[in-house]
């Protein structure tokens, strides 16, 4: 059964230097508060897996938490580049990071395979695509019945999955709703998992029998962090702060302005700072 912890406790207990982690959420429910806590605790040499590194990894990379990034689309959605990601990858600031680049289909299949306990995923992908040339983790497999050649990638296996959800009950059962991305797969592909939530409730009911729910015994720690997905959003709670995504371009373009922003909004703040963004939608 999941333990209900503070964010500091959850990260201290479950996330270590050098871990292979995924902090998922496909535009929706991105666990920013947890990312800030990881920065505050100064975690290092993490392998950071996310389909879209987004601002959360840009912030962590800029503060030196990362050693390797595994991703499929590395931009600031609708805005432009992830400047801290590029600065680390291209100039080694604050430290050199390596990249493993895939397509969305490859990573979605790799998360699915990880959740299913398989060693690899086979899919009809990368045909005529040059990533095959530069990524040794893209191989080929032949269908034993038709002879068709398919792409194969290793399953994603995580030390820790970190995700944000709408609700958990007191046993740590977690409900996701809306754009659910690969969060469930990430948790099921991980040895340990931290789930931040908008609300801790007595019961998740009423809900569809087929709702996207993770039982508490599949989750290591549940943390109550209202607003914890800002500047991404939480369906049914608050909207995406598109304006902040645009502002981030200027903040992150320059190393000093980035450091200043992190100092003010991360290092000198705590998870409670996110509460202001948590206003339940009508």
């Amino acid at each position: 059964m999941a333990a209900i912890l503070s964010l500091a406790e959850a990260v201290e207990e479950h996330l270590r230097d050098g871990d292979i982690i995924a902090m998922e959420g496909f535009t929706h429910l991105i666990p920013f508060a947890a990312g800030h806590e990881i920065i505050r605790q100064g975690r290092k040499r993490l392998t950071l897996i996310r389909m879209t590194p987004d601002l959360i990894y840009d912030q962590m990379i800029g503060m030196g938490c990362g050693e390797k990034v595994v991703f499929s689309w590395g931009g600031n959605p609708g805005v432009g580049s992830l400047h801290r990601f590029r600065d680390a990858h291209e100039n080694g600031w604050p430290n050199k990071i390596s990249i493993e680049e895939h397509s969305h289909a490859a990573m979605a299949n790799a998360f699915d395979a990880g959740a299913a306990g398989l060693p690899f995923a086979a899919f009809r992908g990368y045909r005529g695509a040059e990533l095959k040339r530069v990524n040794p983790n893209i191989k080929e497999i032949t269908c034993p019945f038709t002879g068709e050649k398919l792409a194969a990638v290793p399953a994603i296996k995580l030390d820790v999955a970190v995700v944000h959800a709408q609700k958990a009950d007191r046993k740590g059962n977690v409900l996701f709703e809306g754009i659910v991305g690969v969060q469930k797969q990430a948790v099921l592909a991980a040895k340990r998992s931290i789930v931040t939530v908008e609300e801790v409730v007595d019961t998740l009911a009423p809900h569809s029998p087929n709702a996207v729910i993770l039982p508490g015994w599949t989750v290591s720690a549940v943390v109550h962090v209202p607003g914890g997905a800002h500047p991404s959003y939480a369906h049914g709670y608050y909207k995406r702060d598109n304006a902040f995504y645009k502002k981030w371009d200027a903040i992150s373009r320059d190393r000093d302005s980035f450091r200043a922003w992190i100092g003010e909004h991360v290092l000198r703040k705590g998870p409670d700072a996110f509460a202001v963004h948590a206003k339940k939608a009508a």
Partner: protein
Amino acid sequence: MSANYTPAEMMTVAAARALTNDDVCFVGIGAPSAACNLARLTHAPDIVLIYESGTIETKPNILPLSIGDGELCETALVTVSVPEMFRYWLQGGRITTGFLGGAQIDKFANLNTTVVGPYEKPEVRLPGGGGAPEIATSCGQIFITMSHKKRAFVEKIDFVTSLGHGLGGDDRAKHGVTTKGPTKVLTDLCILEPDPKSKELTVVSLHPGVTREQVIESTGWPIKFSDKLAETPAPTAAELKVLRDIQARTKAAHGEAA
């Protein structure tokens, strides 16, 4: 001439017109999203729009800034997980038309959204492929929308992020791909289509007021023109109104959380 519309609007309108009421579209952010929703709000009310975030049959009232905006889920028939989207829906062969764009395109409509310069030591590191490598091969056909610039329309792209017609001719099929690939490239100057045999992109229609010279000047290879070169009908007042209305709603909405 001074038109009462912008070249970007012309491009979006041209892309919208290329869609039919029976299409099932895999939609990307930006011009494709504008074009698909313009089509939905004009001549193709039943068009099915699918975004890679898992939202199926979405009818956004404002254009998403990100591929996973809440608006897409709130107005969708249903939202599935991202693995299901790529496995059952895209790979499953249910998409008639996919939209792509890029930083670079070559004469066979291969696209680069990965790097300018060498992959290992890029001059410019671009966001990367995202869904493009499999969208390019799994959808029945591909429409490409791009701003027509010499630095984008190049003789040789630095990295083949997604397959178009490869080296031309039947090269695409040699990769084991059975879908049509790029059938139209819609730019702010003209509409291009691959030659039936060579698959080289050929200008089939110039937007009003655009000259051959402008297109030649804006293309990094000796661009070919169709013998039956047409002029693209200018956007109608109705098309412009619908497009500007949704863009105005979008602008208002995206400011709101500031």
